[in-house]
């Protein structure tokens, strides 16, 4: 297999994740879309690492991506649940009190 194949898969995952963030109307799905984006970047790390013939830096970076994703999931969900209990909604459009219009 060539590197390009992995990169294409990662690109597809990335785009799917971003599209999910852009189009789904639930904060939890926004978070899930972000997980896909993170997965795609981790996959890129590992693929480049493998095909550059180097050490394991790419795998380590992917490991840290997973750690960050775990932290993001925990905090993100806590925020979503808190938002739900205070506003009764998890639609991103309802959380715009910081916007100016």
């Amino acid at each position, binding site marked *: 297999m060539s590197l390009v194949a992995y990169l294409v898969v990662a690109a597809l995952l990335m785009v799917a994740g971003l599209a999910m963030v852009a189009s789904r109307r639930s904060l939890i799905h926004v978070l899930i879309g972000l997980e896909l984006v993170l997965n795609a970047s981790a996959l890129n790390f590992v693929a480049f690492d493998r095909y550059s013939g180097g050490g*394991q830096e790419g795998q380590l970076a992917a490991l*840290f991506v*997973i750690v960050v994703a775990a932290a993001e999931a925990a905090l993100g969900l806590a925020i979503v649940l808190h938002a*739900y209990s205070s506003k009764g909604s998890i639609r991103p459009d309802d959380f715009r009190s910081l916007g100016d219009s």
Partner: protein
Amino acid sequence: MTGEVLAFSLFSAMAVGGAGLALFHRSAIHSAFALLASFLGVAGLYLNLGADFLAVTQVLLYAGGILVLYLFGLMLVPPEGEAPRPGRRALALVLAAAPVAIFLIAFLARSSWGDPSRLPEPEGTVRGIGLALLTPDGWLVPFEYASILLLAALVGAVHLARRSAPKDDSP
């Protein structure tokens, strides 16, 4: 068709298919479950790339941890706002599809990247990763930062999840 190509096709189909299903499925919980397939597919791709430890970690943390967390969250809030707005969705898809096509072409134009014939044999990675994570010359400091990050996230999540505590405390 070698076994590697077969495995790659299978896993990438799982990954991309799961992601696509998660994107397009109307039901929130279904998209979450579709994500399981995507995560497992990515884990398989890691295996294909010789990163066995990472693959298992992906399953353990993403499928067993993070996804469970999301499912839990989905069960705690009512399924609302399911249907995306039509116009926005079309725009998103146009924007999403276009870069993908261009990416494919752009990358394939440079297919000289990463000569597969020179690849080293994959070998066990646990020892190397463990040593790299725990040697001061290696990734020890990022490793400790990651643990601090997780601790901070833990404390923050616990604080945020205490229901109505702010209301009781507020004067």
